[in-house]
């Protein structure tokens, strides 16, 4: 009953719930047995099912439907959905661990799962009325429908208030017109949350959110984007041409767009942070393995102090990133405001991912620049974590705004 992989393992006696591995392949904050088992289960799945295809689906831009079909009964699509809607009812650290472990092997699948759970299902859990929940949660939690969240437009990204898609009331429907771009899961989503400008009773224009099914007439998809990383995810544009959405599919109240959008992005940032963390972890493990194997000057490059310094920095930053992320998750589950901490986690995890993947390529030398090695993919995948779900610049804005709004003591 021994995990031979964890050959260096320290259990701090006074902090039973806090296990730190300093082995070659595991670095985990492990607050509980449940989190450990969730990590093991996801890691086992990812290594068995995703590792063999991760490079190919990246290069060929294949959305791995067969693998996703295996993930559906295992509750990957309903991580935090209550069991009565068919979900797994996990806490936020568990959900982060799942995304982290998927992304450690295949970030594009991690992306599909985190977007579906974090920004499509989550706002329904938080803002939907009971009819909307009964209709959409079982579909989404079982994975029968894949979700997407769609705010970004050609002229509205960081500036979420500049959305130009419109929703005009017509009898018992809203008629949507406009174009959304860079929609993660866009090429395959069955249900999308769409931000559109609506006219309030006082004639003010404010954004609102609509639950839009892909089968509604006037819902059209653009070509799948040819992106630098996360290539197995079908990121696409969505076009709305006189797309009629039932009035009952308005999420929250008319004009709630900003409120729902900001709350959703706070949560989505935890997911992107988890994803970045998983990429960094995978890249570091690859670097450690390579550094021990690669011989130059008749000894492994891991015996060179420069390489040791790189590895020490990677491990330290990953540990710090993990603690920051799990703290934000804990804060969320406690019911407290967690937006600032989510931004910190997202900002830091994504910059760690970029640094660690870059160093990992450096340790691999020429091989790291080749598609023969996974680190080349990790390097490309990491880059976007500093961009989507709010750029690093926007995260700093959110953090600074929170800090500066606190009274000076």
């Amino acid at each position, binding site marked *: *009953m*021994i995990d*031979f992989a964890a050959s260096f393992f320290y259990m701090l006696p006074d902090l039973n719930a806090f296990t730190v591995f300093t082995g070659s392949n595991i670095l985990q904050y492990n607050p509980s047995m449940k989190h450990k088992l969730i990590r093991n289960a996801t890691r086992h799945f990812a290594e068995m099912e995703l590792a063999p295809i991760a490079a190919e689906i990246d290069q060929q831009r294949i959305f791995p439907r067969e693998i996703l079909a295996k993930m559906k009964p*295992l509750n990957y699509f309903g991580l935090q959905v209550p*069991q009565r809607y068919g979900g797994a009812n996990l806490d936020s650290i568990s959900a982060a661990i799942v995304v982290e472990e998927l992304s450690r092997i295949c970030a594009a699948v991690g992306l599909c799962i985190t977007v579906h759970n974090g920004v499509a299902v989550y706002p329904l859990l938080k803002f939907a009325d009971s009819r909307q929940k009964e209709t959409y949660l079982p579909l989404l939690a079982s994975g029968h429908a894949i979700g997407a969240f769609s705010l970004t437009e050609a002229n509205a990204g960081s500036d979420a208030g500049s959305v130009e898609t419109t929703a005009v009331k017509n009898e018992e429907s809203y008629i949507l017109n406009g174009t959304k771009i860079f929609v993660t899961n866009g090429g395959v989503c069955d249900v999308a949350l769409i931000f559109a400008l609506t006219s309030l009773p006082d004639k003010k224009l404010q954004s609102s959110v609509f639950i839009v099914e892909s089968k509604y007439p006037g819902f059209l998809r653009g070509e799948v984007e040819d992106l630098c990383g996360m290539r197995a995810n079908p990121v696409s544009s969505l076009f709305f041409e006189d797309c009629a959405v039932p009035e009952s599919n308005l999420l929250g109240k008319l004009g709630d767009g900003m409120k729902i959008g900001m709350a959703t992005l706070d949560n989505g940032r935890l997911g992107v942070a988890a994803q970045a963390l998983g990429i960094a972890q995978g890249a570091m493990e690859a670097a450690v393995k390579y550094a021990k194997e690669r011989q130059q000057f008749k000894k492994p490059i891991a015996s060179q102090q420069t390489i040791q310094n790189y590895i020490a920095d990677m491990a330290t930053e990953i540990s710090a990133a993990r603690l920051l992320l799990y703290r934000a998750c804990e804060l969320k589950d406690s019911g407290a405001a967690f937006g600032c901490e989510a931004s910190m986690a997202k900002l830091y995890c994504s910059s760690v991912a970029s640094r660690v993947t870059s160093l990992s390529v450096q340790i691999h030398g020429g091989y790291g620049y080749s598609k023969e090695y996974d680190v080349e993919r990790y390097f490309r995948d990491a880059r976007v974590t500093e961009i989507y779900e709010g750029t690093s610049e926007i995260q700093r804005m959110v953090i600074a705004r929170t800090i500066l709004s606190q009274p000076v003591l």
Partner: protein
Amino acid sequence: MVTELPWDEKTGSLRRDLSSGMVNPACKRALEAALQIKEKHGAFISVLTMGPPAAEEVLREAFAMGADRGILISDRMLAGSDTYATSFILAQAIQKEVSGYDLVLCGAYTSDSETAQVGPQLAEELNLPAAAYAENLTFSGRTLRVRRLVDNFRETLEMELPALVTISMENYEPRHTSFAGLDKAFQNADLLFRNAADLHITSSILDQHSSRTKVRKIFLRKSQKDNIIITGAAASAVDEFLDKFEGRIGAVIGKSIEAKKRG
């Protein structure tokens, strides 16, 4: 694999502080076999393990996969048990806590010591018919048919329930664990915790059934394989091969293969 583990050279036991627990891979396959029997014929699955308190996670995982009940036997007094003592203790627990069982499934061997002894010894303690290294189980009524692979020979055995079977790594690829299952495993799992006193195992009983063996050294045996090339015409090559090896092959498979020599 065994020699890669952190062994304590003084005591001959595993440094559990340097290793992290997990479900033994062959035991996970035994559980998968049990789950498939449950799905096909209906069953109530009790999972037993003996180990430190942290071994609870093994039972939680088994519960998440579909087991109905878990029993953890944990006691400082039982630490360091060899296969003989372990099978005695497991037998006491089964007799006390799992009445009316039909089938005991064990992993054929553990990844940490690979003795493969506990299952067969447990069958002796429980006085059950047994088969080791099974790769497939089928039932007709209360007759269990076991296919097993030993020394590259496949054989099929039949026995009446109740019986004990150890499951090898050939088959019964374990299912993936679902998150809803894991969540439930931490909400309402039926788990029993038993120490030596609960099982009426006193120190005097334990003395009688205590470990008979002591691990003195763990080492990787140097390979003694040689490639032997026999040349010549096919018939004479076969004769030469049999001359050299028929005794050893016969000893391994337990029957004589003495061939008629060609004239």
